[in-house]
């Protein structure tokens, strides 16, 4: 059997797994959405106020903070994973939290990875609001608070895009969550495939595992779901950009 036939049969089986709502696939997808979704919400709650603070306040070290954020946008995920792992293992400074190999540790890793992404894009979106908008708000009798609100409103599509970019990065991330989450599933087979329902196994980490095991159809099924999720996010981001 050629590799193309192999791939073709894998795709057919993948669709069977998806449409039969295989519990193993569903649980992995659930973990991915839960972990990445929570990390994105927390990162948004940190990054957008931080971007506002940087834009509207003058403080010492502002430029250094911007440099730090820009550097953070390209942070290697395995380095973040390793750093968090060393912090949360039983012998580490935060070992007492017992976070290693948990979804909370995965959320923390993704939070650290995507906060600079959301903050950096938000910063650019707010800064892109033209100076005449600020002048106009002032000339119409606006206060500093009115200017902040108006600028955020004017930058709203850019802010949505930043959140979606963060979510996209979180969903596609593999290195950090593999290290801190451990890629764990409960023991016991589900529906004849896998090792049981996922505990810290996400779409990306499961793909690496299933491929190494030779379970290509399961990998393709997971890949299709992952691509669909990321594609949906990009379609949404494009929609916001077109609205702008």
């Amino acid at each position, binding site marked *: 059997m050629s590799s193309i036939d192999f791939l073709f049969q894998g795709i057919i089986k993948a669709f069977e797994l998806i449409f039969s709502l295989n519990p193993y696939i569903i649980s992995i997808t659930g973990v991915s959405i839960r972990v990445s979704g929570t990390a994105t919400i927390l990162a948004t709650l940190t990054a957008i106020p931080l971007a506002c603070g940087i834009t509207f306040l003058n403080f010492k070290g502002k430029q250094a903070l911007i440099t730090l954020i820009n550097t953070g946008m390209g942070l290697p995920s395995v380095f973040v994973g390793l750093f968090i792992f060393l912090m949360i293992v039983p012998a580490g400074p935060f070992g007492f939290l017992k976070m290693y190999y948990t979804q909370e540790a995965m959320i923390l890793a993704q939070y650290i990875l995507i906060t600079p992404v959301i903050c950096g894009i938000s910063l650019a979106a707010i800064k892109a609001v033209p100076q005449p908008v600020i002048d*106009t*708000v002032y*000339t119409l009798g606006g206060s500093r608070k009115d200017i902040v609100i108006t600028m955020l409103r004017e930058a709203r599509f850019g802010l949505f895009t930043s959140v979606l970019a963060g979510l996209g990065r979180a969903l596609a991330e593999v290195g950090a969550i593999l290290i801190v989450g451990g890629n764990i599933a409960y023991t016991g087979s589900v529906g004849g495939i896998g090792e049981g329902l996922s505990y810290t196994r996400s779409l990306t980490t499961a793909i690496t595992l299933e491929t190494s095991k030779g379970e290509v159809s399961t990998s393709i099924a997971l890949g299709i779901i992952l691509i669909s999720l990321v594609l949906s996010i990009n379609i949404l981001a494009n929609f916001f950009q077109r609205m702008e």
Partner: protein
Amino acid sequence: MHSELIRVQDLGKSFGKRVVLKKINISINEGEIFALMGPSGVGKTTLFRILNLLEKPSEGRLFFRGSELTGGTICENINARRSMSMLFQTPCLLNTTVFNNVAFGLMIRKVDKNTIREKVMNALIIVGLEGNEEQKARTLSGGEAQRMAFARAIVYDPDILLLDEPTSSLDPANVAMIEEIIKRIRHERGTTIVIATHNIYQVKRIADRGGILLNGELIEVNSIERIFEAPEDARTKAFINGEMIY
């Protein structure tokens, strides 16, 4: 006898070593249309930005209704700013509907919704944009956008309206419309209007008094009749006659 609304005393402005305005002295009375004339780049916009408190002067004093604004607190300045309105040469459109753009000044003043609707619709009728309230502001044509910005500037009945070359990029039909609106606003509401322009024919059509600004210096302030018929300064005469004096 009109009472004095704005007084500028020995006002100067520099950006680094570049002196933009020198010892400007000017008094603007309530209810008049005052035209600030001069070629491009002589400091008209800078003076307008100082009058609207968008810029601080480098020297001199600025009074509004007898109260000094130079060095005033932010709160005092907000109260004064809320009595003014300014229209820029290129209108800035907020990324929302025409209605929300025009209503902006009322919304930040926490005016109730019914009054906002009534005032916005009235302002849109004045500028001939009734029926466009739900249209996205950024889809308006240049002339319509300037008229919308005009509606936004007058909707909260400011005491003084600062118009910075409001018709310089418009076609004759829109210029005529804006001039009619200016005269109507002054006539119906008694709004004081200060207009910056290099169009001397426009000044003749709408203004009561005027001043000529050349190279950051206010060379003459007089009634429009005097400026056009018997100018006191030779440079004013040259400017009116369209001679190259700059």
